[in-house]
């Protein structure tokens, strides 16, 4: 079946502009996660959704970052007033159950964001 999809695959923007990154999780997966992968580094946790609520936003690096999820499916990560330090690959993952019990997280291919 279809895996996790993300769009766009690549995004180039100018410093100061806002960007929206989209994630479509696997159908039926109630848990959704956003991660950031900077060049040469491992993934950093950003935010976790259980259904439409976000019980853990601890990884969001600043108030310029926000995310929402509607209908227990699609999620959007928004970065306002982008900075060059926001350049990274943004990865989305989904799983059947959330953080209370470990379940395998299935990852999308990511969105490569470049801020000029």
């Amino acid at each position: 079946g279809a895996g996790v999809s993300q769009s766009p695959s690549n995004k180039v923007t100018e410093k100061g502009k806002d960007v929206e990154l989209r994630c479509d999780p696997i159908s039926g997966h109630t848990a959704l996660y956003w991660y950031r992968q900077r060049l040469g580094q491992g993934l950093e946790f950003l935010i976790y959704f259980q259904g439409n609520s976000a019980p853990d936003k601890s990884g969001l690096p600043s108030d310029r970052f926000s995310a929402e999820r509607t209908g227990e499916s699609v999620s959007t990560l928004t970065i306002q007033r982008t900075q060059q330090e926001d350049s990274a690959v943004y990865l989305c993952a989904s799983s059947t159950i959330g953080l209370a019990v470990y379940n395998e997280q299935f990852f999308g291919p990511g969105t490569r964001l470049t801020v000029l």
Partner: protein
Amino acid sequence: AQSVTQLDSHVSVSEGTPVLLRCNYSSSYSPSLFWYVQHPNKGLQLLLKYTSAATLVKGINGFEAEFKKSETSFHLTKPSAHMSDAAEYFCVVSVREYGNKLVFGAGTILRVKS
């Protein structure tokens, strides 16, 4: 707190020779440990996981890893490398007491020479 250190940023092996990717972790609690693989332009894929059962864990594509609590290590091995194994590998730890969030190592790029 919990953290993961992958000791080599790059590993190069010849096809048919053994693979060893090293990982050490730090955790105040009993961790769950994972190895993920990322092929170019593809999403992360789970190779194997340790969740407090057998300490020697077998994964897909002939990979295995051994949890050694005394050494706080979870090294990934494969007896014979194949060209298709060339990818980036991530060691990952999660701890129930920290909400099972995944904490990733920086990654090891495996190159397989013919």
